[in-house]
């Protein structure tokens, strides 16, 4: 099971802060594709993924038990 978190625009779009995917493993690219198909307007081209609180690359593999977050463009400061 892979946990995913949503923030800001994506939290409002999906209507949820988090959910769990029943997967053993998937790549970051596959997770972004899943989100794009599941939530129209997700805008995955402009979203990064963090795995266990660290920015991940598209080829990185996510495993069951990992905590992921979709990171839309940041705007702190």
């Amino acid at each position, binding site marked *: 099971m892979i946990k995913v978190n949503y*923030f800001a625009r994506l939290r409002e779009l999906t209507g949820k802060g988090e959910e769990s995917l029943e997967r053993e493993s998937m790549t970051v690219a596959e997770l972004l594709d899943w989100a794009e198909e599941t939530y129209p307007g997700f805008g995955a081209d*402009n979203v990064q993924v963090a795995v266990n609180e660290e920015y991940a690359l598209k080829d990185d593999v996510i495993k069951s038990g990992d905590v992921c977050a979709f990171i*839309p463009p940041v705007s*702190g*400061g």
Partner: protein
Amino acid sequence: MEMKPFEIVETPIDVQKYMDYVLHPSAGAVTVFTGNVREWTHGVKTLYLSYEAYIPMAEKKMAEIGAEMEAKWPGVRVAIAHRIGELQISDIAVVIAVSSPHRKAAYDANEYAIDRIKEVVPIWKKEIWEDGEEWIGAQKKYPEKGVEQK
């Protein structure tokens, strides 16, 4: 009082607390930057802002920025706090306090910190106007080698 030098807070920022944290006998300079809520942006009037953060990752990334600063400017001591929730005009959204033996490093390191915060720390700002609202954030491509590499 417990003091976290890199923290996300939900209450008004007490600047003095972060200045006090970085000050020590070898520090000859302390720079303090505050980022404040601006009413007008490109001719549009903001009523208030709403900030949201991925708190554990944001605090971790701010601590990493502090470590980068200590590596680039040996002898600096750093504290950074960012507030989340609803902020009104002129409220402090972020404070960066930097001490160093001499002033140049304190100025330079402080500017480096705010630039890096805007690049890598997972915090989001929503502007609320009289006739709408929007999450702010620049479009960008997925990095080939990770956003935090520089």
